[in-house]
């Protein structure tokens, strides 16, 4: 247990609490209408609207606190705050709010409660498990590509996590009714999320290859992290090669979920397991 008693810790705990409250407020708007009517009387829609607004307000507060934490960490260390798992998870948690707003307004993709939940889940180990000790940037990480390479990957992972939420929703709907309107809507939402995330995943891979050539002399070193990230990339590349249409919706959802499972392995398992020791073990 590594509880933080400094300003950074305070920001992390504010962000964590705000994201949990945002999740609770947003999720409660998803309760069945009948249940809401019993609780709040004859004007449930008023409360639902208010709860949604309160949820967004907490989510925004969580963003301000976690983004402040990321900024503070970056300024105090003088390096991109993506050096270890503590910084990486704080970065993803901070990204969730703007990503959620972008997806809602531009891509018309919902499930914002899941974004608040994901941010909260990521902030739990940041606040209580990982040490906030500052580690020096070794010479091999001192490259202008360090920030863009890691940031694009983290952004892609956050987007693909959101795609996985859409995939689960799609599978849930498809169990009830295989030809409904919500099913095609969910399928479209999943598609838009994967379309947004895949170029970023590719960008991360390409930037990594260029950096690998500069630092190690090779674009590709058959390192465990590289192999798992390639497996992730191939799975999402496979997603785009699946046939279109409602019949393949379920299959696409399963492929997106498999891809997300790969991102978890690439990000977490490879860093924490001694089984996959390699060139990318800076973050562990």
């Amino acid at each position: 247990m590594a509880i933080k008693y400094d300003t950074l810790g305070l920001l992390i705990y504010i962000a964590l609490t705000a994201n949990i409250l945002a999740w609770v407020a947003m999720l409660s708007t998803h309760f069945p209408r009948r249940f809401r009517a019993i609780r709040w009387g004859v004007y449930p829609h008023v409360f639902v609207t208010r709860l949604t607004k309160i949820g967004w307000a907490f989510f925004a507060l969580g963003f301000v606190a976690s983004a402040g934490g990321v900024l503070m960490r970056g300024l105090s260390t003088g390096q991109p705050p993506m050096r270890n798992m503590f910084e990486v998870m704080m970065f993803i948690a901070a990204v969730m709010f703007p990503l959620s707003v972008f997806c809602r307004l531009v891509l018309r993709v919902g499930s914002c409660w899941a974004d608040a939940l994901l941010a909260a889940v990521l902030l739990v180990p940041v606040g209580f498990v990982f040490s906030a000790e500052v580690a020096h940037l070794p010479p091999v990480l001192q490259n202008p590509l360090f920030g863009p390479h890691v940031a694009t990957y983290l952004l892609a992972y956050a987007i693909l996590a959101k795609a996985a939420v859409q995939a689960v929703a799609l599978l849930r709907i498809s169990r009830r009714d295989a030809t409904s309107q919500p099913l095609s809507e969910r399928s479209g939402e999943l598609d838009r999320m994967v379309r947004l995330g895949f170029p970023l995943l590719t960008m991360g891979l390409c930037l990594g290859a260029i950096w690998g050539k500069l630092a190690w002399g090779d674009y590709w070193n058959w390192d465990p992290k590289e192999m798992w990230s390639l497996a992730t990339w191939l799975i999402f590349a496979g997603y785009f090669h699946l046939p279109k249409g409602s019949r393949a919706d379920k299959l696409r959802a399963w492929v997106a979920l498999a891809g997300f499972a790969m991102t978890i392995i690439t990000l977490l398992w490879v860093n924490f397991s001694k089984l996959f020791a390699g060139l990318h073990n800076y973050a562990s």
Partner: protein
Amino acid sequence: MLALLALSLAACRAVRRDMWMLAIHLGLGLVIFGAMWGSDKAHELRSHWLGKDKIPAGEVSLAPGEQARLGELTLKLAATRVEYYPADEPRWQFYFETSNPAGQVVSRTPIHPKPGQLTELGDSGIQLRLMEYIEQNPTRDRNGLLPPPIVKMEFLRGGVVGQLAMAAKENSRRELLRLMLFDTEQDWLQAGRPTLMLSPDQAARKYQAELVVFNQAGFLARKTVEINKPMHCGGYHFYLAHSDPTGREVVIMARSDSGLRIVYTGLALLLAGLIGRLWIRPIWRKISTRKKQEACDGD
């Protein structure tokens, strides 16, 4: 994979007709082709069939002032430099090293001798007694390093006793250890090249090596290489692959540049194709649909 991509280009009309799809598949094909062109096997085949004498990769271990041949080029290490992160408590640390006959370090153990007491140096049979430890002027340099202390030591090995005073910048005492305790160089080599080092115990911020490259015609290039900042000349990239903590010995690695431009072109095409297909095209379609809708509404 390359064959699969070629097949998809040839067989699938959708891929050929769509500019972005073509870019994606062509880019991926170029990346794979470029990597194959730069592979060891491709170098071997070109050397066999075209008589091109270019090595795919190689590395040399150099100390400042030394030079070595690498393929058709000669490398000279002019100087090295190590920068350290400032530390709250900068200190110097004794290390005992053993190496194999090729000069590669086999073991590197930190030792903590206490004044007056005998300390075993690994399994070498050598004992060290710290006689005097004098801190120098406590002014830190720009890296936050204190100057190394002056250390007076006594070594014992099988009845042979040698005394040594280690002072500033004297990081390696290989020869002195050998002369003091071993009759011949062969004995010293057989004992595993026992070496005592006094190194700064701080995280390194930067390793630098000033490298001079010569070809058969003479001087070719001179540059300071760092980790992440290789030198590019004569169809090769030269990397600072490894440096010991004090910079007294570095490993320079060379990698052939064959296929480099093909791979970079492929990566650019792949990325441009994906961004065009998955981001730009939907936006463009949306804008055109909206324009058409507005035109219809106007009519």
